[in-house]
C-alpha cells in the first residue's frame, strides 16, 4: 500500500493592494509664491523659516494638524500658492499626514515638497508609493528634530535647503 501525505494549503493573509497612480505636478519654472505648511511639530516652524529665508520668495504660513489630515480650509489655504513646502515628518503619524496631505495637494494641482527626518524616510517613501505617488518630492532632514535647540535645527536644515534648491533648479 502506498500512502501520500499532503499538507492542506493555507491561504495568504496579506491583502492585495489598491494603487491608483497620482500625477505629480512639475515644479513651475517661475515661482512667485510659496505656502509653508507647518504641522506644528516642534521646530517645524524653525525649518520652514530657514527655508523661507533662503528661498527669499513671497510666502504664506499655513498651519495644519500633525497627526491627522488638514481641514479642507487649511488645504485650500495652502493651495493658494505656486508651491507648498510641508514640514515636518519626524514621527509615525506626522510623517503619514505630511505625505497624505502632500498627495491631496498634488491632486489639487499644487506641486509640493515634503520634509521628513531620515529615520522616517523609508516609511514616507513606501507610503507615497502605496498611494501611487512614487515620485512625490520628499527631502530629508537629520533626525532628531523635536527637543533640539534652534541653532542645531537650522544647521540640519542647511542640508535640506540644498536639496530643495536642487528640486527648484535654484543655484
Amino acid at each position, binding site marked *: 500500500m502506498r500512502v501520500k501525505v499532503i499538507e492542506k494549503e493555507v491561504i495568504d493573509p*496579506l491583502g492585495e493592494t489598491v494603487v491608483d497612480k497620482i500625477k505629480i505636478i512639475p515644479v513651475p519654472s517661475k515661482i512667485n509664491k510659496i505656502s509653508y505648511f507647518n504641522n506644528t*511639530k516642534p521646530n517645524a516652524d524653525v525649518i520652514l523659516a530657514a527655508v523661507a529665508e533662503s528661498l527669499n520668495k513671497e510666502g504664506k504660513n499655513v498651519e495644519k*494638524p500633525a497627526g491627522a489630515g488638514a481641514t479642507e480650509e487649511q488645504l485650500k489655504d495652502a493651495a493658494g500658492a505656486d508651491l507648498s513646502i510641508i514640514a515636518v515628518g519626524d514621527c509615525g*503619524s506626522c510623517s503619514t499626514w505630511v505625505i497624505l496631505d502632500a498627495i491631496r495637494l498634488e491632486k489639487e494641482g499644487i506641486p509640493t515638497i515634503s520634509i521628513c527626518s531620515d529615520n522616517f524616510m523609508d516609511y514616507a517613501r513606501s507610503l507615497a508609493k502605496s498611494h501611487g505617488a512614487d515620485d512625490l518630492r520628499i527631502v530629508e532632514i537629520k533626525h532628531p528634530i523635536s527637543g533640539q535647540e534652534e541653532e542645531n535645527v537650522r544647521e540640519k536644515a542647511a542640508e535640506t535647503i540644498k536639496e530643495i534648491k536642487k528640486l527648484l533648479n535654484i543655484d
Partner: protein
Amino acid sequence: MNNKKVDNACGCSIEDLLKENAEDGEQRLCKAAESDMEVYVDPDPEKLSYEFYMKKQTDGLPIIPPTGERVRRFIEFSGKNRDDIIAVLPPRSGKATVEKIAVNSIMAGCIPQFMPVIQHSIKAVSHPNFNLPGVTATTHPVAVCTILNGPIAGEISINSGAGCLGPGNIANATIGRAMRLCLINIGGAVPGIGDHATMGSPSKYSYCFGEAENENPWEPLHVERGFKADESTVTVMGLDSPHNVNDHRSKTAEDLLDTIIDTASVAGCNNSHVPGEMLVIMSPEHAKTVADDGWNKKDIKKYIHENALVPVELGDRGGRKLDPKWVTGGKVQITRKPEDVVVVVAGGPGRHTMIAHGFGTSSESVTEAMRLADGTPASSVFDFKK
C-alpha cells in the same frame, strides 16, 4: 520517456506520458488501486507559525493554519461574498476582503461566529474620523479598543465581567487579536515598518470587551449613541492601555469621580496637549455608588470634563503645539467637551475603575451597528449565515 512497466488499464499512464522524469523514484499513486491513497492533513501549526512569523505575518504568538476549509466556514458567517471589500487599510492600502479578514481571524484563534463582529470592527476603524493612517503609524502607543454592546455580545459570550480586560475568554482574546492581525497583514502595520510605535503596548495584542449592560445603572454606550437597546454594535476607540483607579473608600459620587479625575489628569498623555476622548470603564460597584448619589451619565461627563486639568507648563510638552483655546487659568482641559468622556460599565466585583486616554484630537471613536446586507439589524450572528 521512461521504460517502467505500468498497467495501462487504469488509464493513469497518461501521467507518465505527460511527465518527463516520472521514473525518478516518484511514488505515483494509482487512482484505480484500492491500496493507494492520498491523505490530507492540517499543516503543522508549529512549523507554519514559525514560517509566518519569519515573514512578519504574526504578532509573535502561534497561529491556527488558515486552510481553505476553515476559511470557507468563516465566510459562511460573513453574510457576504468572499471577494467583497469591507475596507482599504493603511498604510499599504490593502484590500480587507471578507476572505482576508477570515484568514487573519482564523490565525488569531477566532471561531467562525465572530466574523460579523470583526467585519464590522474593520469597517468602523476605516471611518475617516477614526484616522487609522495616523493611529497605525504613530510613535504613540495607541491601540484599537473594541467595545461590544447589544444581544450579539451576549450570544458570543464576550466577557464583560471579572477580568474582562485580561486573559481567559476566547472572544476578548481573539477578536482584538484578529483586528491586530488584519492591521498587520492587510494594512501593513508591521512594527518598525508600518507601525512606528516607539515601544508599542500590550494592548496591541488584543483589546476587546463587552459592556456589562445588566449592571449598568444608566443607558449603555450604544443607546447613548442613538441605537436601540436590542441592536448590536461595535465601538472602536484609539486608546492608551488602561490605567487603574483604586477607590475603596469613597461614598459619594463627587469623591469617587475626584479619584478618577486625579488619575486621568496627567501630563504625558496625548490629551494634555491635543484634548480628545477618554474612556472611563467603571466597575458595577463604582457605578452604583455614583448612581445611588443621584448622578447620571451626563453629570459624570460634565464633572470629569470640567475638572480633569493639567498645568499648562506640563501639558504643553507633547508632539503638537497646544492650541491656546484649550487653556483656562493656566490649565489645559484634557477633553474638549463633556461628550469626550466615554463612560461604560464593565468588570466584576471590586471597587475599581479603569481610565484610558485617547489619541487626542487625532482620532474619534466610531460606533457601527451590526446590520445585514439589506440594512436590517442583526439580532444573532446566525442571521449572517447564508
